[in-house]
């Protein structure tokens, strides 16, 4: 039954992709086919995954695939099912959202083809997660990259979109090269026997290869440079899918490889340290860069780097706990990380869909030109509000549950009397999470406040209008899921794969849900009290207090960059902040401008110099091809002589 559902979903995506690429489709037919086939496929895969998760065990399907070392074998075990759920959910909802979002460019060839690529992306993601054969995994993995590349370069007229596409393609391809080595190990790509790979080399090297290979896709700091370039360039519903679930395939890949490395207890301690270290650095670096951006989707992309950092911290806590023999710490760390994967895919895709509606309504992605949209786009504003509250990790919503479990894992290392490693790594996890949480608060109050609150800063922000129904419903569903994730976490925590839950956890999560409900209840009570008291009295509106200034304008408002500048100045060491002030005229300048920008310091200090030196080096070498005939023959003679002398040992 489950196999049929899974194959049905893959079939629908393939058929939909083929249908959308037909040249004769007229008008709005393509988005409709694309969107709703995505929804149908998502539903089928979701059902299959839930069935597997609920009644345990696994569902296998394998058929012969005429390719050396390959077999078309899918296996939906606990771990795969766990990751298929967010993929199918978010892709389905993004598909529906896309029908509204891409309505006006539906009939252009580019518009139609983008739906083909979208369905291919969805299908390949589900295949990657369900694949249990090396070659199938690799083929689906790269199809996922190529299809998302074509989606990223959808608006390829702009120069920086092309550059973003190139950076994205090369970064993921280099990551795949390392994953290639994982699968190419002798004895690897075991067909049909379930485990993808039997590592023949030392486990440490295998782990590092998997970490770097899949870390590139998950966007962990030194390898994250493509993420803030690629996600903003794609259409919003695609960046929701990419940021929401595609980077999760990196986490899935890493977990799948770890399952091949024997039981966690034997893992060396430094693995846990590497994970927590990279997670902490990614979290802090990601959120700090998100503070300085002006493009709404780039902020969300950097915050994805942060959340992936949090997931890696959770996994690090799991590994440290396992290798130091602290069962509670390891189970809580893994539970927190996996729950955060779910939660992040829900609220991140919600935020990206919201960003898409804002960009479509106000015609710009620069948050400094928006403002006061809550009045005109109430429903999107409400959904975005829920998303921002969830991403900061505030109690009633789902962001809190994942982080709480990781906190608990870290604290259990601290208050229990286990060794030095566990407690110090726990401490590092707590500090990173706390600081990242605080900075996330700055980042998302800045984002929500600048975009939705205050008065509009440009005239087309003033004329923004609410989005179409089909764009709003997916956001509402995701917002409700955020709330449900927060309140019903104790039901779900039992089904997390590979996690032996300590007895008290569901009961504690239930208590938390209760306490966090007290806040909205109290607010309702106070609101009712206020309503009763105000019933008789006059409630009027007047201008905001401007110290008596008679002409308050929208330029007087606090802008986004000024909101985050103090924080950025405090953390100047980590991020390459650029403050350029320009004034014409020495003593009586009639104009003064200050521009604050943030460059990605890894790109700026690490990758660009690397490429420049490679370019110079190849310049030095290409002198060899100087065109003079005689020297070419000299090369031949020289090679001949060298070989003869070297080989024959004359």
């Amino acid at each position, binding site marked *: 039954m489950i196999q049929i559902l899974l194959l049905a979903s893959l079939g629908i995506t393939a058929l939909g992709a083929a249908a959308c690429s037909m040249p004769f489709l007229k008008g709005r037919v393509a988005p409709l086919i694309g969107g709703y086939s995505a929804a149908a496929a998502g539903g089928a895969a979701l059902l299959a995954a839930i069935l597997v998760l609920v009644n345990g065990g696994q569902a296998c399907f394998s058929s012969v695939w005429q390719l050396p070392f390959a077999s078309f074998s899918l296996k939906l075990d606990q771990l795969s099912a766990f990751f298929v759920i967010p993929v199918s959910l978010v892709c389905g909802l993004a598909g529906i959202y896309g029908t509204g979002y891409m309505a006006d460019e539906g009939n252009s060839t580019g518009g139609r083809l983008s739906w083909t690529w979208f369905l291919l992306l969805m299908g390949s993601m589900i295949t990657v997660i369900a694949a249990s054969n090396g070659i199938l995994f690799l083929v689906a993995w790269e199809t996922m990259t190529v299809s998302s590349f074509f989606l990223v370069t959808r608006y390829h007229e702009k120069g920086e979109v092309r550059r973003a596409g190139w950076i994205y393609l090369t970064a993921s391809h280099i990551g795949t090269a390392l994953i290639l080595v994982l699968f190419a190990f002798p004895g690897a790509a075991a067909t049909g026997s379930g485990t993808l790979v039997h590592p023949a080399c030392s486990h440490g090297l295998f782990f590092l290869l998997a970490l770097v290979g899949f870390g590139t896709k998950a966007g962990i700091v030194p390898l994250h440079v493509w993420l803030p370039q690629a996600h903003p360039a794609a259409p919003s519903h695609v960046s929701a899918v990419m940021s929401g679930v595609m980077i999760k395939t990196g986490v899935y890949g890493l977990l799948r490889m770890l399952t091949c490395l024997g039981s966690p207890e034997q893992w060396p301690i430094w693995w846990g340290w590497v994970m927590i270290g990279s997670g902490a650095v990614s979290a802090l670096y990601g959120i700090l860069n998100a503070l300085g951006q002006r493009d709404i989707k780039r902020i969300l992309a950097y915050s994805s780097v942060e959340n992936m950092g949090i997931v890696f911290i959770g996994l690090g806590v799991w590994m440290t706990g396992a290798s130091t023999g602290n069962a509670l710490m390891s189970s809580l760390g893994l539970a927190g990380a996996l729950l955060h994967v779910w939660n992040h895919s829900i609220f991140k895709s919600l935020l990206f869909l919201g960003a898409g509606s804002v960009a479509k309504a106000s015609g710009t992605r620069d948050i400094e030109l928006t403002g006061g949209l809550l009045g005109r786009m109430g429903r999107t504003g409400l959904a975005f509000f829920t998303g921002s509250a969830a991403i900061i990790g505030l109690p009633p919503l789902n962001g809190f549950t994942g982080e709480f479990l990781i906190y608990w894992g870290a604290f259990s290392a601290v208050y229990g009397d286990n060794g030095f490693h566990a407690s110090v790594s726990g401490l590092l996890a707590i500090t990173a999470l706390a600081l990242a949480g605080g900075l996330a608060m700055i980042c998302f109050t800045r984002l929500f406040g600048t975009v939705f609150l205050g008065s509009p800063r440009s005239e087309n922000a003033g004329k923004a209008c609410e989005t179409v129904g089909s764009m709003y419903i997916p956001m509402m569903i995701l917002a409700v899921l955020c709330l449900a994730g927060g309140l019903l976490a104790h039901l779900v925590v039992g089904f997390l794969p590979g996690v032996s839950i300590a007895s008290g956890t569901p009961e504690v999560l239930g208590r938390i849900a209760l306490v966090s409900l007290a806040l909205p209840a109290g607010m309702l009570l106070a609101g009712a009290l206020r309503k009763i008291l105000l019933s008789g009295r006059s409630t009027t509106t007047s201008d905001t207090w401007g110290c008596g200034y008679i002409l308050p304008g929208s330029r007087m408002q606090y802008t986004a960059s000024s909101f985050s500048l103090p924080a950025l100045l405090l953390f100047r060491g980590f991020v390459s902040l650029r403050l350029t002030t320009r004034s014409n005229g020495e003593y009586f300048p009639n104009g003064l401008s200050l521009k604050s920008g943030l460059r990605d310091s890894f790109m700026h200090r690490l990758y660009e110099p690397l490429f420049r030196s490679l370019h110079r080096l190849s310049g030095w070498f*290409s002198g060899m*091809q*100087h*065109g*003079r*005939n*005689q*020297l070419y*023959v*000299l090369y*031949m*003679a020289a090679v001949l002589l060298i070989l*003869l*002398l070297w080989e*024959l040992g*004359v």
Partner: protein
Amino acid sequence: MNGLAEILIMLLMLTNFRLLGSSRLPACISTVAFQAVLLGAITLTTAGWRLSPWVIILTASTLAVKGVLLPALLRKAVRDVGISREIQPFVGFGTSVLLGAVLLSVCFIISRPFLDSAASEQSRMLIPGAMFTIMSGMFIIITRKKALTQVLGYLAMENGIYAFGTSLAVEAPFLVEIGMLLDVFVAVFVMGIVIYRINQEFDHMDTHKLTELRD
């Protein structure tokens, strides 16, 4: 019997020095023709017990092609192009000869391992001789500027390889030998056409100026 072969091989080495030293094209062409004649003589002397009608016809055809036909073609090319001297090549003629001597010593060093396992006895002198001819052919290609001189260098290389082939190796089937001969002839013929076209296009024949295609 092998005394004669020794002398012929020694003559072959001398022709190489003449090729390295002379700047006039017609002189070089005649040296290469003389080398071809020497080649034929060497094959006949070293053939010894394998003297069969086929071998004689083969040597005769080699002499005809390399001794007469190709030099005639090249002399006609020199007349058409009107350039008859190689002016200041990359390596001066005097130094070329000296380097030729160095090359000869290198050949002797290289051929030492081959000699102590040489199949037949009389090839004792032949291996260094042939190798020296090949090396001087390549030396001419590398150091000379004119295209025609480079063709001559190629021909000298071919002669050296033939010296190896016909005497040392077991004789290949007749058709293959003729095929090889035909290939060399057509190669030089096509090179001649290309040189003629280059001369028309660039109205000079210095290959070192042809450097438009580079990275």
